[in-house]
């Protein structure tokens, strides 16, 4: 299975802090790879580093054969990488429509793709001309993900989409993520919620202290409670 994204010995410093300390992992093509780990393990930094929002101090990142480590975020995005950050980062003063128009960098919004998105995010159609700032947290998350997929992408980076959302909304979001996953897009998904990880993930990479400490199939980790406890300090079953 070929890797769409690969990181080799990636180091990232933020100010005087050495956050990523030689990260090695890959995200196989057409699969959903979960990036798990405790708070502060470096998951968000890893995503931001791939996206070009933090500079790589040392190491190599590649999208297919294209090196990313010296690229700006706009260059990385132009290669077909969609990004839905932890903060959602929707443009509050812009309407839902305007947020999506900005997501469609290469041209006008595609009606068929919009219909596909409205199929699992119907609220976006209903609130089409509303200010994004007036949406609920879950709807902002929908908009953030929709903006990342409003054009076909080679790789999707999604950072903690369920953070701060009510359990009922998390269930709906899992269904949405499965819809997106069904398009065979490669996804790298940072998540704290094990239920989401188990239901959506094909592969898993676990980080701790700025390094990858485990890589394998998500199903294997989900089935091995002892491994979960050792890697994450928490049982998967306690997060149903």
């Amino acid at each position, binding site marked *: 299975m070929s890797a769409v994204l690969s990181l080799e010995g990636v180091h990232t410093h933020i100010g005087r802090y050495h956050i990523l300390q030689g990260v090695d992992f890959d995200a196989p093509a057409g699969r959903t790879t979960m990036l798990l780990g405790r708070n502060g393990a470096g998951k968000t930094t890893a995503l931001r580093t791939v996206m070009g*929002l933090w500079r790589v101090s040392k190491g190599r990142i590649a999208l297919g054969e294209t090196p990313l480590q010296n690229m700006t975020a*706009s260059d990385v995005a132009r290669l077909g990488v969609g990004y839905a950050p932890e903060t959602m980062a929707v443009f509050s003063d812009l309407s839902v429509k305007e947020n999506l128009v*900005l997501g469609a960098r290469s041209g006008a919004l595609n009606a068929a793709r919009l219909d596909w998105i409205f199929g699992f995010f119907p609220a976006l159609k209903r609130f089409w001309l509303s200010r994004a700032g007036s949406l609920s947290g879950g709807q902002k998350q929908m908009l953030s993900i929709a903006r990342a997929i409003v054009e076909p992408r080679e790789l999707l980076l999604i950072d903690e989409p369920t953070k701060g959302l*009510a359990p009922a909304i998390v269930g709906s979001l899992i269904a949405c993520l499965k819809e997106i996953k069904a398009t065979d897009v490669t996804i790298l998904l940072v998540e704290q919620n094990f239920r989401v990880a188990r239901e959506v993930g094909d592969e898993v990479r676990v980080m701790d202290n700025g390094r990858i400490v485990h890589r394998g199939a998500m199903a294997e980790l989900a089935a091995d409670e002892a491994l979960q406890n050792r890697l994450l300090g928490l049982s998967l079953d306690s997060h149903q």
Partner: protein
Amino acid sequence: MSALDAGAALPRRRMEILPALTPLIVALVAAPFIGSPSTFVTLTAAGLAMGMMIFTMASGLTLVFGMMDVLNFGHGAFIALGAYVATLVLLPLAGWSSANSLALNLAVFVLAVLAAALVCGAVGWAFERLIVKPVYGQHLRQILATIGGSIIAEQLLYALFGPERIPVALPTTFQGSIVLGEAAIEKYRLLATLVGLAVFAGEMLILNRTKIGLLIRAGVENREMVEALGYRVDRLFVGVFMAGSALAGLGGAMMALYRGLVHATIGGEFLVLCFIVIIIGGLGSVGGSFVGAILVALIANYAGFLAPKLALVSNIMAMVVVLLWRPRGLYPVSGR
């Protein structure tokens, strides 16, 4: 219906009306104290014209600060440069200016203000590349670098044009006043008001109806995300800085004609006022600057008539009152 889809229909985007009405409220409060309707009309028309010129200068500053997070204390240099460029166009074309022809008068006016805007836009490009770009994200250095750039620009203007005030004559058509009842309204003030309204309409059109405008509005709120969507924010920055400089030059040219005198200190005089206006309006908000500029100019005019000593501090007092009411300005921009 999924949980994500739940919730009542949200309101469509709606602008708050009350902040936009503040100039009207100020005018209505001032009217009884002024007494004479003709004086009130004259003061209000003068205030609107001054407000439009200040807005033209300040709107560029608010975009530059809002989007690029750059404290450009060099903005005043572009106001002065615009005034001088307009003068350089008007002086050799004095024949057109003094001719008794609306077409020639209008042509020389348009040439002067266009030249001011274009030259300032071009110089703005060099200023951004040489002085501003190296200090992005470093406010203290921005202040030092842009003040330094401004001093150099002002001294260059002194060296090129001398320290004397250069008189500039208004084109014949725009001299004198129109009398409405007992109120006299200077023709040039009407022209300045029309130009300011056209600038405002143009800016709102670009910001709200074009993708470039959308990017600028998004960039004011979250530059990083705009970049992560694949847009080259650095190029957008250069464009915004050039547009901001061009607007400063246009405003400077308009103001030079209004005063009939050009001097290198004109930029410094209006820079403080521009900062007051963009703070009142809400940093990064063009609409807020529009309302703020009218508000400041009307208050200054009414205060100058009713209590001249108060006029010296009226701008600062207006800012204090607005910020006590709305700490982030009349129309705050999210993320600012």
